[in-house]
């Protein structure tokens, strides 16, 4: 009589119901992706067949070949990397410098300045996008990567916030010691603080990668020449081309979309923990 039978039956029922709900909802959430994968491996006629056959046989991998040859996708990939890598580096360095300033120094106006920095996080970009476009046009930067890269040199409020919060949790002892040894603040920031902040650094790099790799609005505004397009912009160019032809090759469009999604998915599975940390920290302020 140690375990009352009713409550144990209740627990089993509750767990079963939980699994039932999880599996049902999980299926509902995965079906679009399964359909995408299935469509991407069908020949064109099978995509429109009624009733729809889920399992393509044989697998038409040539859709993926067509997806990367229809437009210069290799070029798009290089362009995307050429933008993403500098943005990641610049965002991290500038945001971490500013975050260190807010975390470790006392100066008049600091708290007001930090509050202002947080407030700009909520600012809708539309209100600055027209003047910035005119500015970059005046500088002759339209149709170059500069408007997409240069702004990242000035720090990004969300990452400044995230890094500052992390720096505050690092005890200052080792910094004090280095300071007594005569190291400069910049040197301490680089070789004492940043190595201790690796989880936060990883989160910033991952979020910046995701944000830049998938950015559509920036490239749409600034990159006019098709050969300068990023993968995300190129995917939209492909859409326009494929939708404009007689029979829409949905199989090829789905293959191309999956290829663009792939790095995100891989990164997500490699760094799930950093994702969750970044998202929860954003909400915890």
């Amino acid at each position: 009589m140690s375990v009352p039978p009713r409550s144990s039956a209740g627990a089993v029922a509750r767990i079963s119901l939980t699994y039932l709900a999880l599996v049902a909802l999980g299926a509902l959430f995965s079906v679009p992706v399964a359909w995408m994968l299935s469509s991407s491996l069908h020949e064109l006629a099978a995509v429109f067949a009624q009733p729809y056959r889920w399992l393509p046989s044989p697998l038409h991998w040539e859709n993926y070949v067509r997806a990367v040859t229809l437009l210069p996708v290799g070029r798009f990939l290089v362009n995307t990397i050429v933008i993403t890598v500098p943005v990641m580096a610049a965002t991290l360095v500038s945001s971490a410098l500013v975050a260190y300033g807010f975390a470790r120094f006392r100066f008049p106006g600091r708290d007001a300045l930090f509050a202002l920095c947080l407030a700009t996080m909520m600012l809708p970009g539309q209100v600055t996008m027209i003047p910035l476009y005119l500015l970059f046009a005046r500088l002759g930067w339209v149709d170059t990567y500069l408007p997409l890269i240069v702004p990242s040199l000035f720090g990004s409020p969300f990452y400044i916030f995230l890094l500052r919060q992390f720096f505050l949790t690092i005890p200052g002892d080792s910094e004090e010691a280095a300071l007594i040894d005569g190291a400069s603040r910049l040197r301490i920031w680089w070789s004492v603080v940043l190595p201790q902040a690796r989880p936060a650094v990883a989160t910033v790099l991952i979020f910046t990668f995701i944000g830049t790799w998938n950015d559509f609005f920036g490239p749409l505004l600034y990159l006019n020449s098709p050969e300068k397009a990023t993968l995300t912009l190129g995917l939209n160019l492909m859409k326009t081309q494929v939708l404009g032809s007689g029979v829409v090759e949905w199989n090829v469009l789905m293959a191309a979309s999956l290829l663009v999604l792939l790095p995100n998915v891989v990164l997500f599975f490699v760094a799930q923990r950093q994702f969750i940390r970044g998202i929860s920290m954003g909400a915890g302020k």
Partner: protein
Amino acid sequence: MKAEARQGWLFVSPWVIGFVLLTAGPMLYSLYLSFTSASLLSVPQWIGGENYRRMASDPLFYRSLANTAVYAGMGVPTGLLLALGLALLLNAPVRGIGFFRALFFLPSVTNTVALSLLWLWLLNPEFGLLNTALRAVGIEGPLWLQSEAWAKPALVLMSLWTVGGQAVIFLAALQGVPRELGEAAAIDGAGAVRRFFAVTLPMISPALLFNLIMGLVGALQVFTQAFVMTGGVQPGSEGGPNQATLFIVLYIYKKAFQEFDMGYASALAWALFVLIVGCSALAFRLARERVHYEGGQP
């Protein structure tokens, strides 16, 4: 002491410079532009409040405002409810829960253009999965994006697929609720529903407010889906059947970068800015007494 202040300013200077050059300066300039007849090349001519008068009698502006309000009004509450429901489910201490957490979160870390193409295909009236499934149970589905009535619900449906991010925030909040609180309430005879409303909901109310405001701000700025999914092949055709998906940001984009009507577009952008700030302030004010912060105000 003085050296410390100087060094502090030096460290934060990148952001200060960026704030002046890329935020504050452009904001002021955009306010100025909204009172001019600026185009891409011409020198802006001061025309006073003409752009704002024009906005007040622009049917497309009202249309975009109404579209955005309907989209946010449908999408934000349903998104919050779904995310909260998912989070409660994902908080269950059962085996393999990590797998399900990843599964629901995954769609929200991906590429909006790729997801738009996927949903364009899912929502295809004739061959799309959604209408095929509906047909299998004897329902002839709507034309979705090609129908004036169903285009916005279609985009809301798509947005519900990416509530994983909000669910993660709710989940983190749920995991911060001390177990003893619920147990104490249970001992006092509170049922599961009452425990949820009396204990859990107040404890996670900061996350609720955060998700509400971020969801609202995001919905008011919806652009990419509408641009990719409701545009035809011709540039300028974006906006869906009878402008059903002409949202404010899409309208600003078209005015500014397809018609180069920069002055008017700046006025539209300021209207959106006021709308977003107003909505966020309203949400904060309404929530102030209802949101519970552990250990007092943050």
